[in-house]
């Protein structure tokens, strides 16, 4: 195919707890995602999809099996090395946005670069560019409580993108948004994906998932289906990069 796999999970198991109260969150999961894919992970609560996201996002280590991110085995890295991988290779978008309330949009977006030790001037330049990319160039100095849910999520996307990660991980990115704002977010994701970014998201919403080109379904810690989406829904882009709907 010529396109390298970014995510390579082989026979990954994840067990929580010890002794009698062990929970088998993932059992023998193998998953390969190549550069430029847009993948949705679906499944009921407790199916292991969040655990899978945590492993892919290097927030957690697999109990067994290997995880090769890009060309590097990250399944046994120490905490600080994992932090470094998260900082450089992974962009997170959360359901509840998780912006820091005391920082304005620009300062929130700067955060990953601060932990990378990047000098202030280039931080500002990159953060400004990332905010402009999600259509919030005008609202850089607004605080999270001055922004709508959709706008906050766009700030979060800018924060995830600013470090130019190799994958973007989104955990229910539209879960706390109305359908219109959710549509905007999906439009941004599709636009980013067109530009070549690899995107993996977890969602409950079948319609949201159908914006992706591949859907993985999980049940009881296993992948039970892995199908391409024949005709992904194309999100309308009415407000991206241009006018902003509501304040």
């Amino acid at each position, binding site marked *: 195919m010529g396109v390298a796999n970014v995510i390579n999970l082989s026979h990954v198991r994840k067990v929580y707890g010890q002794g009698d109260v062990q929970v088998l969150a993932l059992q023998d999961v193998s998953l390969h995602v190549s550069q430029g894919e847009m993948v949705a992970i679906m499944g009921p609560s407790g199916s292991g999809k969040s655990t899978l996201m945590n492993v892919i996002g290097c*927030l957690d280590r697999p109990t067994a099996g290997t995880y090769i991110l890009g060309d590097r085995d990250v399944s046994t890295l120490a*905490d600080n090395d994992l932090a470094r991988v998260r900082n450089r290779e992974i962009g997170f978008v959360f359901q509840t946005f998780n912006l820091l309330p005391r*920082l304005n949009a620009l300062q929130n977006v700067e955060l990953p670069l601060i932990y990378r030790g990047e000098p202030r001037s280039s931080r500002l330049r990159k953060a400004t560019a990332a905010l402009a990319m999600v259509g919030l160039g005008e609202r850089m100095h607004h605080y999270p409580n001055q922004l709508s849910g959709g706008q906050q999520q766009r700030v979060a996307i800018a924060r995830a993108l600013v470090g130019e990660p190799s994958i973007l991980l989104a955990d229910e990115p539209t879960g706390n948004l109305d359908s219109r704002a959710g549509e905007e977010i999906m439009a941004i994701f599709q636009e980013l994906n067109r530009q070549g970014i690899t995107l993996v998201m977890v969602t409950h919403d079948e319609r949201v998932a159908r914006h992706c080109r591949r859907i993985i379904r999980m049940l009881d810690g296993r992948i039970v289906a892995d199908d391409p989406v024949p005709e992904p829904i194309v999100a309308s882009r009415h407000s991206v990069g241009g006018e902003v709907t509501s304040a």
Partner: protein
Amino acid sequence: MSILEGIRMAWLSLSGNKLRTFLTMLGVIIGVAAVIAMVSIGQGATSQVTSQVQSLGANLIVIAPSASAGVRFTVDDAATLAGRVPELAQVMPVITSPVTAQYGITNYSTTVQGVTENFPQVRDFPVAVGRFFNAADVSDAANVAVLGQTVATQLFKGVNPVGRSVSINGQPFNVIGVLTAKGGSLGQNQDDVVVIPVTTAERLVRTRYIAAIYAIPKSADLSAVAVGHLENVFQHKYQSDQAVTVLAQDQLLSTVNTVTMTLTLMLAAIAGISLLVGGIGIMNIMLVSVTERTREIGVRKALGARRRDVMQQFLVESVFLAGVGGIIGILLGVGGAKLITQLAGWATSVSVPSVLLAFVFATAVGVGFGMWPAVRAANLNPIDALRYE
């Protein structure tokens, strides 16, 4: 993450909750201010007492008979002593008695001191106006008097007393001089005195016995030798080391210094406890803050913050709280010491080491009490922290 970024972040978070930040600092502010004010009071007292003891006269040795042991000195004993202890440069008998002095219609109760003509050298207490009496005045038992500043002011109220006559216990005395102002010493006003020849005093208060013998050694180095020699003399004479007290000024000074040092340390310790309580306040608030910001810590870790980045963030906050509290406390402590001097009239002395020590201690409190919360924050598992509601 650089320290500068850490300070910026700490500032953002602390300025986001100003009341809490202020109240947390208050513990350290009060602690540091108390340490500095208390130590300054202690040191002020020390230097005051020291200068008072020194104002008794340089290298003064006081030889006092113990009345309970039945030992009494006469003027002749003083003269004999000068011959027997060659280390002594000056020996002076002292008779002390309360008297009433009168000038015109003004009466004033004071103390008379009967001494010899070497009083200005022995007590390091020269005259300001007029002259001191001489050996002839002493051998003649002349009715001459030298007044302390307080007595001069009380009786003469601005008039130059030299050449005028005062009545002491009904006997007329010719005022020939006024002493310089010396101030208080150990609770006594040294200027509230009338100095007359010891021979005159014997007659005035009708006694053969003197209260004490003052002596000074030939040099400061000989002080200890002289004291030892004197003690030997009296031990031999009275077969008891309780009969006569020989006290050198430097001994007195070291005793006084021990006492005031203890006092200073005790005050500092009490104030230090309040600083410790302030530190516990910081720890308390930082622990609350870590719990409150669990989610924030999770987000930061997800974005790539390492363990030490998180630790540094919280540590910088607690050190900032303690450091700024320390600086405000220093200002308040120095101001408080000045205020105490103004209002209560106590001598205070703010020393640079005590200020530095208080600041370093406050910062150390910040590090010490901020460490546990910071470690707790750094050790949070990012997944749990992100899920925390």
